[in-house]
């Protein structure tokens, strides 16, 4: 188990090194002079040259790459072309908002998907089963941003139950220890604030949870149906165990491997979904920042953010691989 884990972990830095090289070369391949862009429209030739020197853009590519890697390892993600801010500061300011949105969405999506898939498999062939299947087909095919807009239209415009968008209650931001507004509101002893912040979260979380829910429900159902046909399930039932314990202890655990795989696979779409969801709801997180820097062609920020996303994504994938070993003892001894 330990060797397996170490091998997986050892591979990660190599992939990330490759990813950093790729993103570095990709953004150097573009036409135009970043120094001229940064120096501004009215800069003189000398000013452009000075900026070029400051950014080391006049040095050979490999020197630039090594310098950039060195900066990254020291936690320096570079400075934004647009406002000269440190990209790391901009990321740190927005990370809690994205985490507060994405983590509940993933948890909700996986939990709801498991329950729906379990129900569908248990009541195979009934209207329950058909309903879950239709829901999951639609959940995979629906565009995230459109779903968000429709939910806003129904719950915010027509019914006016929930806020139209944004993250902050009317009182504005709250500076707390965690950066998560709901948690900080509770910690600060302001339940009304926490409640209002939670109301802002409802629609974005549901929107983002839809895709993982649909995929998890679908895979749980088909995986369970396969496991339920196994001999050991029949044995367990035959020796007199009740339906529910057999389902939960014998069937579900064995059906979980494909589910974990699909959770791993849906992390990629989750990142993309977060970008779209934040844009729809005006959620001030990393997703909206990425869109802004891509539209503004703010290359140091694009470079840093895409690499940061790759780091999170690749790490999550390794964790998924490792969790197989937790669920299935056979893998540990391979």
């Amino acid at each position: 188990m330990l060797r397996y884990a170490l091998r997986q972990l050892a591979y990660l830095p190599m992939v990330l090194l490759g990813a950093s090289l790729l993103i570095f070369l990709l953004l150097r391949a573009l036409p135009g002079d970043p120094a001229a862009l940064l120096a501004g429209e009215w800069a003189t030739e000398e000013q452009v040259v000075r900026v070029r020197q400051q950014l080391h853009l006049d040095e050979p590519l490999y020197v630039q790459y090594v310098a950039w890697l060195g900066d990254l390892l020291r936690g320096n993600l570079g400075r934004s072309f647009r406002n000269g801010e440190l990209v790391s500061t901009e990321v740190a300011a927005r990370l809690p908002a994205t985490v507060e949105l994405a983590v509940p969405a993933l948890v909700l999506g996986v939990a709801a998907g498991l329950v729906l898939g379990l129900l569908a498999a248990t009541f195979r062939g009934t209207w329950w089963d058909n309903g879950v299947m239709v829901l999951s087909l639609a959940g995979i095919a629906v565009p995230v941003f459109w779903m968000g807009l429709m939910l806003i239209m129904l719950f915010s415009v027509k019914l006016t139950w929930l806020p139209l968008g944004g993250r902050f209650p009317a009182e504005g931001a709250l500076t707390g220890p965690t950066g998560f507004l709901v948690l900080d509101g509770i910690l600060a002893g302001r339940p009304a604030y926490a409640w209002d912040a939670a109301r802002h979260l409802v629609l974005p979380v549901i929107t983002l949870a839809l895709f993982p829910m649909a995929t998890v429900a679908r895979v749980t159902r088909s995986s369970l149906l396969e496991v339920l046909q196994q001999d050991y399930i029949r044995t367990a039932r035959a020796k007199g165990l009740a339906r529910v314990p057999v389902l939960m202890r014998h069937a579900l655990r064995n059906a979980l491997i494909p589910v974990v795989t699909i959770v791993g696979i849906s992390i990629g779409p989750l990142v993309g979904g977060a970008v779209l969801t934040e844009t729809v709801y005006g959620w001030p997180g990393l997703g909206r920042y990425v869109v802004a820097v891509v539209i503004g062609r703010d290359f140091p920020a694009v470079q840093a953010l895409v690499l940061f996303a790759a780091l999170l994504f690749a790490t999550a994938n390794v964790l998924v691989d490792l969790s197989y070993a937790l669920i299935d003892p056979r893998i540990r001894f391979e």
Partner: protein
Amino acid sequence: MARYVQARRSPAIQAARRLLRHRMALIGGVILFVLGAAAILAPALSPQNPLAVDLSRKLLPGFWDPAGSRQFPLGTDELGRDVFSRVLYGGRISLLAGIGTTVLATLAGLLIGSISLFSTRADTIAMRSLDILFAFPPLLLAMAVVAVLGAGLSNAVLAITLVDAPRMARVVRGQMLSVKSQEYMEAARAIGVSNIRMLFRHALPNVIPLVIVYSSLLIGRAILTIAGLGFLGLGARPPTPEWGAMLSQSRDLMLLGAWLPVALPGIAILLSVLGFNMMGDALRDSLDPRLQ
């Protein structure tokens, strides 16, 4: 000889029979047929020019409303353009971009995936390089490419091709490796069949069914991603009637109570992705009866 030919053709015919009996294939096929026909016949079916702006008739309701007009059956958007015509023409762009992306990605994937048939070392290098592309969340990689190339529909298509091609390559490679170890491949090699002939005559026919299944699933995803990039302002530029871009231009109209310009492009995306996904599932079931 005749019997041999018959025996060789029958798996395809059997698969076609299974497909015709498949309920999902029927529903998906009908959806795709209607959407495809609407897109192809858009010039004949559209009551208006999809780009014609006329502010004097902006935000008209649908024909069922007393204030609506038969000439603008589903109303108009904020610039007075006919929503129905725009959604019809949008199908040409979104469907074609989705299919085009997938064709490009499939060709690239076949090329890269076929390496495994010939050289283990080249295959290892190719797969390790692809691992790097897999390290990026798909939409972010596409966005980075768009950041470099600039926003636009053709750049979005290229970006998504770069995202999807490695996925197709992995699928092709997996199947190639399993084909490679089959006895008939060994026999072919033993009697001195050339590499090219081995690839086209013996390996590819056994890989293609899986490629068809996977590419039909990729089309749905490509349509979604192109619409997503359009919605973010990184894909098709206005006034192009691309479904995702239409949604993003009309989103504020919801607050004015005009929901058709927002709802319709989304329903069109949903239906086309649903159609391709159902077709893909049905194809998988019919081409590989073991999975049923």
